[in-house]
């Protein structure tokens, strides 16, 4: 019996995803769909959040900052969790694609940690009277931003790509201890930051008209992560594999592809395929 016959379809799919020659066009085909889904979630989220939701009885209209602040903070932790899972895959199976995933996720995670911190300051100033306090929640989120930047810096500091990938995966795993600290910081320490309102198990202490736009924005941000992650992974793969056969094949395919009247490649093979 051949090995191919015993391989489950799921495992086969997993191995395919690990191969740039298959992943690059696959990701390219997903891009327009993710972009459309992002807008489809974002636009109603913005409309309902900025316009339709009633002003908060304590915080007035300033509470609307929540619609970017909370989804960004959630995503900054979600991205790290995804990277940590990928780090395990990278270290155990030595899968290069998992390292590319971590490398490509880190700037996105850093971006959303930064959004969470800056929008938090813009919310804190009118509500607490201070842009910044050295509070457990804020400090642990700032540390998360520094960990993201450290992961990027570490990768770029090591010449050999695979050694850099292993070091980066290890650092990602070590940094995962910060995640529960961020999450439980409002419980463990007496902080200025308000406690959880949505993830409480009994009933969320937030009005439904305020909750729906929050969930829409959170979903939109998650899709945005998937969208920009694929863009970044494709860019990193192409950049690293310039001399590789699969890139050569892509270039030739785009040149021999039929062109339409405007002289552009009709099927945009190089862009999405």
């Amino acid at each position, binding site marked *: 019996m051949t090995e191919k016959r015993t391989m489950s379809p799921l495992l086969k799919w997993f191995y395919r995803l690990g191969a740039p020659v298959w992943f690059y066009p696959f990701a390219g085909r997903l891009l327009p769909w993710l972009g459309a889904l992002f807008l489809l979630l974002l636009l109603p989220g913005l409309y309902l959040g*900025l*316009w339709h939701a009633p*002003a908060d009885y304590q915080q*007035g*209209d*300033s509470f*609307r*900052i929540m619609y*970017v*602040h909370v989804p*960004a903070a959630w995503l900054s932790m979600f991205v790290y969790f995804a990277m940590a899972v990928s780090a395990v895959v990278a270290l155990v199976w030595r899968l290069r694609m998992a390292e590319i995933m971590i490398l*490509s996720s880190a*700037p*996105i995670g850093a*971006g*959303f940690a*930064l*959004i969470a911190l*800056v*929008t938090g300051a*813009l*919310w804190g*100033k*009118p509500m607490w009277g201070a842009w910044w306090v050295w509070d457990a929640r804020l400090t642990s989120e700032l540390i998360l931003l520094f960990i993201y930047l450290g992961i990027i810096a570490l990768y770029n500091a090591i010449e050999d790509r695979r050694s850099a990938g292993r070091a980066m995966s290890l650092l990602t795993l070590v940094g995962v201890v910060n995640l529960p600290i961020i999450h439980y910081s409002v419980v463990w320490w007496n902080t200025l930051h308000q406690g959880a309102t949505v993830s409480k198990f009994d009933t969320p202490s937030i009005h439904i008209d305020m909750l729906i736009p929050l969930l829409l924005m959170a979903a939109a941000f998650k899709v*945005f992560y998937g*969208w*920009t992650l694929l*863009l*970044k992974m*494709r*860019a*990193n793969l*192409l*950049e690293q594999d*310039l*001399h590789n056969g699969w*890139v*050569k094949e*892509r*270039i*030739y395919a785009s040149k021999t592809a039929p062109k339409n009247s405007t002289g552009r490649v009709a099927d945009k093979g*190089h862009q999405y395929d």
Partner: protein
Amino acid sequence: MTEFLNMGGYAFYVWSAFGFSALVMAILFIQPIVQHRQAWREAEALHDDDADNLGERP
């Protein structure tokens, strides 16, 4: 409309927060596209030369 833009007196804080988020997200979207285009051009130049080397060189 002015009432909407005024955000109950919190206009500066609310619109700065949304504006900053939009700016960061725009960078996260545009940077990989620029990086990809640059790498694509490099790859094109590289593999053009390869084709020449296979062909008419004496």
